[in-house]
Structure formats: structure tokens, C-alpha cells
């Protein structure tokens, strides 16, 4: 564990030192601020929740995917480009240590980028004490989704940076992977005329995002994210091992491992589909625990 902490700390500190990280943070904050302002202005008085205003904008997710792709790909891509991977792999650490440390670092960095953008409702409340649109449990459900997405994007970025030598190609692949997860369902809703509904053009990013930001934490979505992360973690470690143990049949071994991991993840998701439950938020004031469990 100590090795993971040391490696992760180095990555986070190094990232915080580079100007490009702060530039990305500025652009992301500007985009997410603009989205929040647009929603706050256009949806004022239409009964829209602040969690929806914060997390439902397509532009917010697109910007998040872009910065998350850049951060996660460069975590391992820079080591490969600068040759420092040779220092890492000859240090007394395992491949699992390296991948876990990079994952943790990527998660922390993406959250550092994203958290200032999700505290806009609190700023709004501080500026207008009379405003009563704050929905803490729903906002927390949105933050949970953001954390799951940050973990998934980091692992996807690490994976693609090992597959592609060019960081640009890896970033595009990571962005598309994230887009597939975030926007699945959106395309269908546009084609099916969902955009005709007044708000869905902005709001209906994906069904699972809509449910999270309206305070419903669905076990199926959580299981999907967690198993996808587990598969990617396993694959990342296997790929890094492959770079060290370039033995005959090594690639076939990784492909076989991938299919086995996907089958296992599929089974877990199938069980989760059979036994779904969700945690629903109830009005915040008046209760100590703002959620209740329900079996579906």
C-alpha cells in the first residue's frame, strides 16, 4: 500500500506543477460555469432541481470527458514517452502497484478538476439566501456518478495509452469510450423525437444520468461502472505485464484474459439485473438519512 501512496503522490504533485493542468481546469470551469449559468437562467421557475442544473448539461459531460481523457492518457503515456517507465518497472514495485497508483492519481486529479464545477449550487445559495432550490441528496447522488465516471475514465485512459503509442489516438479512444457510456440512450432519444420535449435536448443526456441526478441511485448502474472498472484494471495490469514478459503467446493470453474477464463481468451484471434495487432520495429537511431503499 505504501508503494501505491508514494507513486500516486508523485503523479498528483507533478500534475499540479504543470501549467497545462491549470489551463485545462480553467477551460473546464469556464465551460461548466457557462452551462450552469445557462440552465440557471433558462430553467428558473420551471421546477428544475439544482442537481439537474449541475450535472445534466451535455456540454458539462463533454468537457469532463475531454479533460479526463487528457489527464488519464498522459498518466502512463508520459512515462512511456519519457522512458521513465523503465525506472518504474525496475523499482521494487509490481505492475499492480503501478496501475493502482496511476488510477488513484487519475481519480484524484479528475475530481480536483471537477469538484469546483459542482459546487456552483452552493455558491448560488450563498449569493441568494432566499433561494430554496438546494437538493443535497440529489446533488450527492450526482457527485457519486461523477466519481464513478472519473474512475472509469482513468482506467480507460490507462488502457488506451498502453494500446496506442500516440497519445492523441489514445485520448480520442478514451473520449469515445466515455462518450459511449455517458451518451448511450441519448442518440436513441434524439432519433425517437425525445428532443421535442422542452428540456430533454439539454437534460436527457442518458437515462442513468437522469436517474442519478434526480436522486435515484440504481444498483444496476453502480454494478455496471464497478465491473467495467474491475475489467479495465485487470486488463491494464495484464498489458503492463505483457510489456515486461514479451513471451510467445503473450498477446493471445491477454486477449483470452480479456474475454474471461468480460464474461465474468457480464455474469455479475446479469445477477445485478435480476436483483435490482435502488436508493431513492426523499426531501432533505426533516430526516436524518435523506435516502430510502426500495426493491424493484
Amino acid at each position: 500500500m505504501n508503494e501505491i501512496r508514494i507513486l500516486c503522490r508523485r503523479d498528483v504533485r507533478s500534475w499540479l506543477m504543470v501549467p497545462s493542468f491549470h489551463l485545462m481546469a480553467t477551460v473546464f470551469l469556464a465551460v461548466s460555469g457557462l452551462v450552469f449559468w445557462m440552465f440557471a437562467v433558462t430553467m428558473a421557475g420551471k421546477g428544475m432541481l439544482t442537481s439537474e442544473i449541475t450535472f445534466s448539461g451535455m456540454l458539462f459531460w463533454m468537457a469532463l470527458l475531454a479533460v479526463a481523457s487528457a489527464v488519464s492518457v498522459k498518466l502512463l503515456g508520459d512515462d512511456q514517452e519519457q522512458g521513465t517507465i523503465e525506472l518504474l518497472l525496475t523499482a521494487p514495485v509490481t505492475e499492480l502497484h503501478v496501475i493502482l497508483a496511476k488510477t488513484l492519481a487519475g481519480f484524484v486529479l479528475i475530481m480536483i478538476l471537477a469538484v469546483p464545477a459542482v459546487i456552483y449550487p452552493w455558491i448560488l445559495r450563498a449569493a441568494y439566501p432566499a433561494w430554496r432550490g438546494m437538493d443535497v441528496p440529489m446533488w450527492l447522488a450526482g457527485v457519486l456518478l461523477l466519481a464513478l465516471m472519473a474512475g472509469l475514465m482513468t482506467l480507460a485512459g490507462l488502457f488506451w495509452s498502453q494500446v496506442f503509442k500516440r497519445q492523441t489516438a489514445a485520448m480520442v479512444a478514451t473520449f469515445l469510450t466515455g462518450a459511449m457510456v455517458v451518451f448511450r440512450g441519448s442518440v436513441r432519444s434524439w432519433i425517437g423525437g425525445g428532443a421535442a420535449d422542452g428540456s430533454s435536448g439539454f437534460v436527457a443526456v442518458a437515462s442513468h444520468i437522469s436517474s442519478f441526478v434526480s436522486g435515484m441511485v440504481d444498483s444496476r448502474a453502480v454494478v455496471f461502472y464497478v465491473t467495467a472498472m474491475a475489467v479495465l484494471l485487470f486488463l491494464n495490469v495484464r498489458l503492463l505485464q505483457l510489456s515486461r514478459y514479451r513471451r510467445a503467446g503473450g498477446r493471445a493470453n491477454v486477449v483470452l484474459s480479456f474475454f474471461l474477464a468480460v464474461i465474468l463481468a457480464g455474469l455479475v451484471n446479469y445477477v445485478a439485473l435480476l436483483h435490482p434495487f435502488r436508493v431513492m432520495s426523499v426531501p432533505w429537511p426533516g430526516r436524518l438519512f435523506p435516502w430510502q431503499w426500495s426493491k424493484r
Partner: protein
Amino acid sequence: MIEVGHLTQKFGRVTALRDVTFHIARGETVALIGPSGAGKTTLLRVLATYMAPTSGTVLIGGHDVITQSLAIRRMLGYLPEKDPIYPEMRVMEYLVFRARLRGLSGRTRVKRLRELIGRCGLAGLERALMGNLSKGEVRRVLLADCLVGEPEVILMDEPTLGLDPVNGERIRGSFSHLKEARTLIFSTHDMTEAESLCTRVMILNRGLIAAFDSPAELIRKQNAANLGEVIQALVSKGGLS
């Protein structure tokens, strides 16, 4: 200390090392010499556990490089040929990071780093950004990194490559301290360096060991004036002894 048996390393169709077998005892200093592409870097990378051999066995301190690579990395210091650096890190910050990875903490770490900074000629550079260092300075930082864990086995890939005479001498001076009680293997193109520092010389050519003996013995056997002539003679013969 190091036992290599029938080691072969292939990269696709290219065979970098062919059926290499040798033994190096604890405390020996061995120089790997040979023309470019002879397999020196590949051999050092296999010993450093950076890459696993295609076939054959490699044991370091009784540990296998494939199944017990972590145990080997704990007893190993490695200086790579190219200069991999984190340009945004400061010298001291980098050395502290590497010392922590080696399990050094508290006063032991401070004492060890202070000693290495003096020995590797890094005084005054502690706060310098690695990206702003000259090649010689980077090499010295990486040398300090290689020695930070007080490793039993030290592997150096062309430690004085591209350095001016002053920096080259500084590095040579720093590893002359290491010769006692440590196993040191380094690759070099500098015959004087090989002759003056090592107990044995391994001459590699096209992935094969052309000769492996003490410098004096090699010179005597080839009836040559120096190691340079020995290499020329062996390489022109096709490299097999």
C-alpha cells in the same frame, strides 16, 4: 550471485541474445563490451527484470527473474542507458521519491541522500529542476538514484556515455567506492575504463559471448597490446571463442 543459463532473447525475428551462459560471483566488477547491437543493453535489461528472457534461466541472489522479480528488484540498482527523467521534478524531490520507493524513511533517508549528494557531485543542485539539468548532471542524479537503496547488485548501462572527461571521471570515481562487497556490471565503449575498473570483461558480439575473462588474461590470450585490439581480433573472427 548471478547465474545465467542458456539465455536467449528475441524481439520478433531479431535475436538479441543467443544461448548466453555465465556466472558472476559476489563482489565481482564486470564490464560488458562489444560493438553496438551486440546485446549489452538487452542483457542488462533482462538482469534488471525490465524484460523477461524469451528462454533460459536467470538467477540473481538465488531468485528467478520471472517468478521472483520483485525480490530481485529490491536488491538491485539500475542505471539505464537513455536518461529517463521527470522534467518537472526537482533533484531532491526525485531522490526522496526514489528513496521512499526503496523503503528508506526518516533519518536513514536524510543521511543516505546527504551522503549520495556529496559523492555524486550534486551539491548545489538539490533544488534544480531535472528538465534544466545538463546531460552530465542528469547522469549523476540517475547514478545517485541507482545507489540510493544500497543495492547488492548494481547494473549500469554506459554510465559515462556522452560525458565530458571531468564528469566521466567523477562518475568513475564514485563507483570505485562500490567495488568492495557489491556486484557491479556495467557496459561501456571505453576500453581504459573497462581495463582499469573491472575484474573481468565480457565481450559480446551479435548476441553471443565472444570472451569472458580478466583483462590481463584476454590480452595475453590474444597476444594483443590492449583490450581494443582484443575486441578487434575477436569481432573480425566472427566473435566466437
